[in-house]
């Protein structure tokens, strides 16, 4: 098997295209199965949740990050370590609430939406809602672990 100089980046690119295409096929199938966008959004969130509760273990095993001391640190780890590890992007953290318990992640180059155009009849579809579910599931697992440790 010959090794070409650009093989590495080429296969990484293809791997992300496979991912993008698969996600697109998934959302398309969901839109076919459920007639309205709200149900699709809910299903994406549910699926993402199922992924998140397991992904967090993989993340903690591979990333070696210690315990986060506060929510700001958590936000940093999510944006700079987790997103980088799994999606190869680093979203920006903005929009902190005054109480410091809410923030926004802005994804400039979301790999999920490469080549994707939403038609007009799906205006209320949250295409990347799977990511919301993943975050929800992953963080819920950590919170549980925290409580267990404190108890």
């Amino acid at each position, binding site marked *: 098997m010959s090794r070409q100089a650009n093989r590495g980046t080429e296969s990484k690119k293809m791997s*992300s295209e*496979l991912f993008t295409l*698969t996600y697109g096929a*998934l959302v398309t199938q969901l839109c076919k199965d459920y007639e309205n966008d709200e149900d699709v959004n809910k299903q994406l969130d549910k699926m993402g949740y199922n*992924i998140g509760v*397991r*992904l967090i273990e*993989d993340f903690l095993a591979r990333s070696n990050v210690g315990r986060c001391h506060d929510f700001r640190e958590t936000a940093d780890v999510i944006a700079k370590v987790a997103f980088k590890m799994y999606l190869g992007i680093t979203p920006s953290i903005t929009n902190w609430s005054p109480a410091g318990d809410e923030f926004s992640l802005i994804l400039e180059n979301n790999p999920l939406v490469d080549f994707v155009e939403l038609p007009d009849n799906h205006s209320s579809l949250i295409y990347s809602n799977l990511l919301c579910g993943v975050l929800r599931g992953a963080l819920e697992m950590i919170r549980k672990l925290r409580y267990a440790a404190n108890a």
Partner: protein
Amino acid sequence: MKSPPDGRFPPRLAAGGCAPLLAQSRGGFESLWVLQDENGRCITKLENMGFRVGQGLIERFTKDTARFKDELDIMKFICKDFWTTVFKKQIDNLRTNHQGIYVLQDNKFRLLTQMSAGKQYLEHASKYLAFTCGLIRGGLSNLGIKSIVTAEVSSMPACKFQVMIQKL
């Protein structure tokens, strides 16, 4: 020999990069269809999704490659370059009867390696293969080959994909 799959179990599939996210998303939507209990429909849907993805993928992947000499050349491409791109390894064994039937054997199929190697989940393995069958069928379809692709698992994590070329 195809046993009807039923029941559910969460897969834990992890590897580098976005492969785990991809693989786990498959676990995600398997739990979605478990409620329907119509496993035949589930497999068909997964296969159809794989088909769409395979079509798109092969287009992107072959836009700069040279023309294929013949059917065997295409199958070798699937076994080597295509499989390496998707699963980071090649097909271990390709057999053909030179009359349109090809058997692709993968001794360590990446979607099955994280599952227990015994007989326990053998009957559920077909769910994890359905998408890949579609992937092959879709890829071949956009290379001008109409086919039927089935898969069988005799012992985890090895599996065989059987491709039957349909002469138009």
